[in-house]
């Protein structure tokens, strides 16, 4: 990793089991600040599992065992004194399927800040506008903030979900195949949005779309059978991958 890249998240010797099935094997990785890091690999390779360990979403899975270290800005996130609500405020998640709450667009965005104790109407208005602008959807919804978020198209719903994640002013944004359920136009809007967001946030995406990984990520990590096989600059990985298994996967010689 280049010396000017400060790691925001550092995993060392990370291992994870679902019951007796090992899903992550000795993963070491530094996620750099204000870059887009893409996690790629075939289904079941552990990339989504890894993403979920970063904001402790795997805690909810029964029978899960996690070993090793994950540090967020130096803080061991699996340490008992860590407040998971605090962690998830710092590290937001956007999922594959847009999942707005069944409430108005406004309330979707205001939900997080309200949970964190903000009650002031003017302050909430400001956060809602700023977040929707940040997610490049303000112009499309500003006249119907009181309408249900479920009335929006899939691409708009996904951007509302991104706005909802931004509303609590996170540091890191995790996206689990955030565009795989969207049409090409919505996808390209979200990709452009990711390009903008990386100026202010550290972004980690999981994607099955190799072209998307090459288009928008700075760093790329290839997982296979729970192992991190190769991690490096995206340009390098897609032109001269170091590991034969990476090459076979990205060129479609696999499976």
């Amino acid at each position, binding site marked *: 990793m280049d010396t000017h890249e400060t790691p925001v998240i550092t995993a060392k010797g990370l291992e994870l089991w679902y019951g007796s099935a090992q899903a992550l094997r000795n993963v070491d990785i530094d996620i750099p600040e204000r870059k887009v890091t893409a996690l790629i690999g075939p289904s079941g390779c552990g990339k989504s599992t890894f993403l979920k360990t970063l904001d402790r979403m795997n805690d909810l899975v029964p029978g899960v065992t996690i070993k090793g270290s994950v540090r967020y800005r130096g803080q061991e996130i699996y340490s008992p004194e860590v407040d998971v609500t605090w962690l998830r405020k710092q590290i937001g998640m956007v999922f594959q399927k847009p999942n707005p709450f069944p409430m108005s667009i406004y309330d979707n965005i205001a939900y997080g800040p309200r949970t964190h104790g903000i009650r002031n109407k003017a302050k909430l208005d400001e956060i809602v506008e700023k977040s929707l602008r940040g997610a490049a959807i303000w112009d499309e919804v500003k006249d119907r903030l009181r309408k249900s978020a479920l009335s929006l198209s899939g691409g708009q719903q996904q951007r509302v979900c991104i706005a909802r994640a931004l509303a609590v002013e996170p540091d890191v944004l995790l996206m689990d195949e955030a565009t795989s359920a969207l049409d090409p136009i919505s996808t390209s809007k979200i990709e452009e949005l990711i390009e903008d967001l990386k100026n202010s946030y550290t972004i980690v995406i999981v994607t099955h779309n*190799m*072209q998307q990984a090459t288009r928008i990520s700075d760093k790329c990590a290839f997982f296979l059978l729970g192992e991190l096989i190769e991690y490096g600059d995206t340009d390098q990985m*897609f*032109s*001269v991958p170091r590991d034969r298994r990476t090459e076979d996967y*990205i*060129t*479609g*010689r696999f499976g």
Partner: protein
Amino acid sequence: MRKTFDAELLELNEELTAMARTAQDAIDVVTESLSSDDEAAAKAAIEMTSSMDQMERDIENRCLQLLLRQQPVARDLRAISAAMKMVTDLQRIGDQAANIAEISLLLSRQGVVKVPQDIGIMSCKAGLMVKQAISAYTGRDVETAHAVVNLDDEVDDLFSQVKRELIEEVAENKDEADSSIDFIIIAKYLERIADHAVNIAQWAIFCVTGEL
């Protein structure tokens, strides 16, 4: 998986090999025309190289199709982008062989036959370099590619030698200055052909290592 893509990459290799073979044959025939004062051979060489323009377009077209449809990465991306670059070198080689053939036609009409021996040697080496450079590419063979790069020094030395000899000849025998200058031009074309073969060899190396 990716049966079609692999088959198309093989076809691309075959097209490049065919084009390289045409270039090499043209160089052989043109050299033959020089030493045997054979107008028909010179015309045949020009005819051969004219088909190379179409070959170039076909290969470029195939590469563009592959980029569009397969969106290649890693070694596939390197192979296709290298092919797009080296096809231009092959086409230039064809042009230069045709230029030599045109001079050869003029020379034979003037009844000049005494071609410097080193030009024949240069021509053999240049032709061999073209053939080896393409086989280095299709066989992903870095060693052969380096051999081509090294051969270039020999061709450069031969060019310097031919030039020296011809300058002396011009000094001694002003009446044949015209043909001596034509021979220098031919030697220069052969030296350029060898340079294009080096470019192709370097693309073959890029294809394997990713190093430009």
